[in-house]
């Protein structure tokens, strides 16, 4: 599944619903209401079916007890929560709100467009509504005698106002429930797509698939579609033509993908691979390993350390000021060091060196003789000879690989 699909899969919470004509919310009643399965473990698969993927459906069906089912449902929604920082589950709340709007037949006041008379809860309109919510624009175009009425739902991209998604509904036989127009069948066959909406469609449209001359009646319907102004809504007629072949401006996105179960929000976040770096390795428990964490006053995150430049370049640290990883009676620690020396008298002289130093010792030595100083020679006398004499600004960074505690400072040192 491509990354472009991620956005569509994210918890169906795409756009801020905007007012759609006739969108006055009605009280649910037995005459106009749409029957929707209850929010119970028994009704889970039916009520939230469009959000459940095949793997989850199979797993749910295998569950034996109500307790198992309830746990599954809890986990299902936790994974889809769009804001894990709040106690509410915004994703479920939004979906339940949409289900309420379907139950109350939100579009019932627009003749012919209610959920109830267009397949109800199982219809294509309800499916698109559950996944995407109220469209930014709902437009209807009448084809009079040439082509069937078309209803277009468009969803605007909140960033640029362009059309992010579009769902075109029609009555395939000129009557009955509104169904989604099968854009996949006509992706590269506009002539066939227009033929599909004709009141008297030609059954042999495939004969002009692939660039052949479009039959005259199809061409006439196309020209009428181009010039007709929608009787409801603000979509231009060109949007209807575009929606005959597309569901999104992402041209790789298929209608089936757009209407498939959304990927849980937590998984989208995971796929985008946000991560924290720098956490202390000590937090990852390893069997049989303990840690001696230094106990000096400033050692929760730092390492008190001294740098000396004499005949050699040396760093000094007390045993008890660094953290150790202990296995049995043996302790080890690893310090990573990076030093940059810049000659203050001659800017062109600049050198950097770094590396990793491993220390081993006994646990007893560290706990009983922690005050002992350890010296690390970074530049030996012969190496120092290669450096011109003078004053240097030393930028020093030292990190304990066991715990990620560190010391970093700049100091001026003189090479005699």
């Amino acid at each position, binding site marked *: 599944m491509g990354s472009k699909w991620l956005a569509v899969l*994210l918890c169906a919470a795409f756009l801020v619903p905007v007012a759609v004509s006739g969108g006055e919310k009605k009280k649910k009643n037995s005459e106009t209401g749409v029957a929707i399965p209850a929010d119970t473990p028994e009704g889970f698969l039916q009520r939230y079916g469009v959000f459940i993927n095949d793997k989850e459906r199979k797993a749910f069906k295998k569950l034996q007890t109500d307790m198992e089912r309830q746990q599954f449902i809890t986990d299902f929604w936790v994974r889809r929560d769009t804001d894990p920082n709040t106690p509410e589950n915004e994703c479920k709340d939004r979906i339940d709100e949409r289900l309420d709007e379907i139950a109350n037949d939100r579009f019932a006041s627009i003749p012919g467009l209610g959920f109830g008379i267009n397949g109800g809860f199982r219809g294509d309109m309800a499916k698109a509504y559950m996944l995407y919510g109220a469209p930014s624009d709902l437009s209807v175009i009448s084809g009079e005698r040439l082509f069937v009425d078309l209803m277009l739902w468009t969803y605007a991209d909140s960033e640029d106002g362009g059309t992010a998604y579009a769902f075109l509904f029609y009555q395939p036989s000129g009557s009955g429930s509104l169904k989604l127009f099968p854009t996949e069948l006509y992706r590269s066959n506009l002539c066939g797509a227009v033929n599909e909406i004709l009141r008297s469609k030609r059954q042999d449209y495939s004969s002009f698939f692939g660039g052949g001359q479009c039959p005259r009646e199809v061409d006439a319907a196309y020209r009428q579609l181009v010039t007709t102004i929608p009787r409801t809504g603000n979509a231009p007629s060109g949007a209807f033509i575009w929606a005959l072949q597309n569901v999104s401006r992402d041209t790789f996105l298929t209608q089936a993908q757009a209407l498939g179960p959304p990927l849980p929000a937590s998984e989208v976040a995971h796929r985008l691979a946000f991560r924290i770096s720098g956490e202390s390795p000590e937090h990852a428990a390893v069997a049989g390993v303990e840690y001696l964490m230094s106990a000096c006053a400033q050692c929760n995150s730092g390492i*008190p350390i001294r740098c000396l430049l004499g005949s050699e370049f040396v760093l000094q640290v*007390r045993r008890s000021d660094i953290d150790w990883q202990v296995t049995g009676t043996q302790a080890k620690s690893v310090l990573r060091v990076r030093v940059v020396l810049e000659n203050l008298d001659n800017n062109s002289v600049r050198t950097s060196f770094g590396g990793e130093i491993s220390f081993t010792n006994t646990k007893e030595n560290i706990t009983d003789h922690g005050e002992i100083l350890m010296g690390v020679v970074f530049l030996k006398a012969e190496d120092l000879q290669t450096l011109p004499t003078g004053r240097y600004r030393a930028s020093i960074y030292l990190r304990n690989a066991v715990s990620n505690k560190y010391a*970093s*400072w700049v100091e001026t040192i003189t090479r005699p």
Partner: protein
Amino acid sequence: MLLVALLLSASQAVAQPPDPTGWQVVLQKQLEFRVNDCQTAFVGLVTEYRNPQDSHEFVRVYRQQIALVSGCAKEINVGAVRDSESVVSVFNYRQKKEREALGLVQKATDVFAVVCWKTAEDSRSGQMILAGPVQSWLLDQTGSWMFSDGQEMVIRPFSEPFIPDTEQRVPVGLQFALGDATRAVRIDQEYLVFPKGKNKEKGNGK
């Protein structure tokens, strides 16, 4: 043993900074900086306190923590997160992860810089203004407190050559300086993750 003695004498050279335990917290924020478009470094905490006995006296305490970098391990495909709610949702998950990680490392931090000042009302403008010199303490790398009465602590971001491409520099930390003493709170370049292939495209990989 001589070195041990040196260390101890240095750490006793300057009086300890004030301890604001019991003072009112008036401000707390992360000590953070942006590394690039998708990575933020968290290196400590800044807390400002007010003396409950003297509402004109303040202390700002800088604490160092084990540094963390929060960010994306791979470049976000702009096309993958096209709508604002998707972006918000991903941000929410990132925020939760950050909060959990910061909560863990901020259980134990090290005070490394303290600034203390007093304010007074300006009789002409009625505004609160600084009264008297600012006192500053900075803990140097040896564990010794440096003190200044009146000298300003300088805080500035610093960068270093990017290891795979030394022609390029990356921001790695904040440097605190008080007189000759310096201390940096920083991240390791190892924590930085760049979009796949980017490192290879740049520099000689040295």
